[in-house]
């Protein structure tokens, strides 16, 4: 069965389907069949006469043929780049494939990249939260650090003995006000203790052995 007969048999309303029965003919289908040498002799003669008289049809034909040439070049490049290991694999005798060597690189890469991104995000997040920033700990710690010498005596007592801030809304503000006063008193006590501690050390140093 020839292509022309097939074309004649096609009946539907799709835009690009040719109808060879009447006058309605899709020129792109005819051009395509002409390029592929699939028109019969009668159709070819009729189409060539149209090409001689219709410049738009000639331009379209030239364009489609140029596109075909470009497609051939794209695919010729592809065929030139056959992985050498594939031919070697076929040529090798007595090769037993224990498992498929090749996997889908694109998706494997994507999966690995996604896993790496998650791990990096986790590490960065951990590092950021692990950075010692006194101002992000709580008001109690910030206040203590501002009012106490570095690694002063009693600093660790402050860390472990003072209760955490509690409360919500207005109650929280009141609670925080009370606690701040308490912290202030305690830090004054710590400063006094530090001074006492410092003076004891100074006295000890001045004492003869």
């Amino acid at each position, binding site marked *: 069965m020839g292509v022309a007969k097939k074309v004649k048999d096609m009946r539907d309303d799709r835009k690009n389907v040719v109808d060879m029965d009447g006058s309605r003919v899709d020129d792109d289908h005819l051009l395509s069949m002409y*390029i592929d040498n*699939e028109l019969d002799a009668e159709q070819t003669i009729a189409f060539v006469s149209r090409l001689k008289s219709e410049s738009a049809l000639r331009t379209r034909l030239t364009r489609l043929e140029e596109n075909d040439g470009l497609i051939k070049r794209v*695919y010729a490049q592809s065929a030139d780049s056959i*992985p050498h290991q594939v031919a070697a694999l076929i040529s090798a005798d007595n090769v037993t*494939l224990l498992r*498929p060597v*090749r996997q889908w690189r694109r998706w494997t890469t994507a999966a690995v990249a996604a896993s790496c991104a998650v791990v990096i995000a986790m590490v960065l997040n951990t590092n950021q939260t692990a950075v010692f920033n006194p101002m992000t700990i709580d008001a109690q710690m910030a206040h203590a650090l501002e009012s106490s010498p570095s690694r002063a005596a009693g600093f660790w007592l402050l860390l472990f003995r003072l209760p955490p801030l509690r409360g919500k809304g207005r109650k929280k503000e009141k609670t925080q006000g009370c606690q701040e006063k308490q912290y202030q008193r305690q830090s004054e006590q710590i400063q006094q203790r530090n001074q006492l501690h410092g003076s004891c050390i100074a006295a000890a140093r001045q004492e003869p052995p």
Partner: protein
Amino acid sequence: MTTLTSQQRQDLIDELPRLKRYCLSLTSDPADADDLLQITVERLLEKGMPADAHVAKWSHRVCKNLWIDEIRSRDVRNRYALSEGVIDGAGTTSANTEESVQLDRVSAAMEQLPAEQRAALVQVAVEGRSYAEAAAFLEVPIGTIMSRVARARKALAANLEWREEREA
């Protein structure tokens, strides 16, 4: 049917360029085409083929079935994918000469075609098969090949014109 005969191996090596172009017509991505080619060869070596099998037709059929399996599994993966941005950017070249720009445009336009149209166009326009041969090869009616090739050419031309206007 576990191993290929030496004649089948030789036929398969001769078939590799056409098989590679077929892979590209299915995948439209050079890296995927390489993967598909190698996986096809591995499958043929692993499973073999009947002694009287036509190597070209058999290998192309295996290739197509493997690609269909991959498409299905990608469809499943796509439904659960977190992001598509990771895999973007494949198949482009950095060369900016007029010729390579033109070929890049064609590659991109080919990629936009439906797979069945692309495969039909490659069999006819690149491999030089007649509609009847392409129909037998792709196991579809001749009228379907005719329609797919014509629609592929039309869509490709429209896509290329659009790209040229956009880049002008």
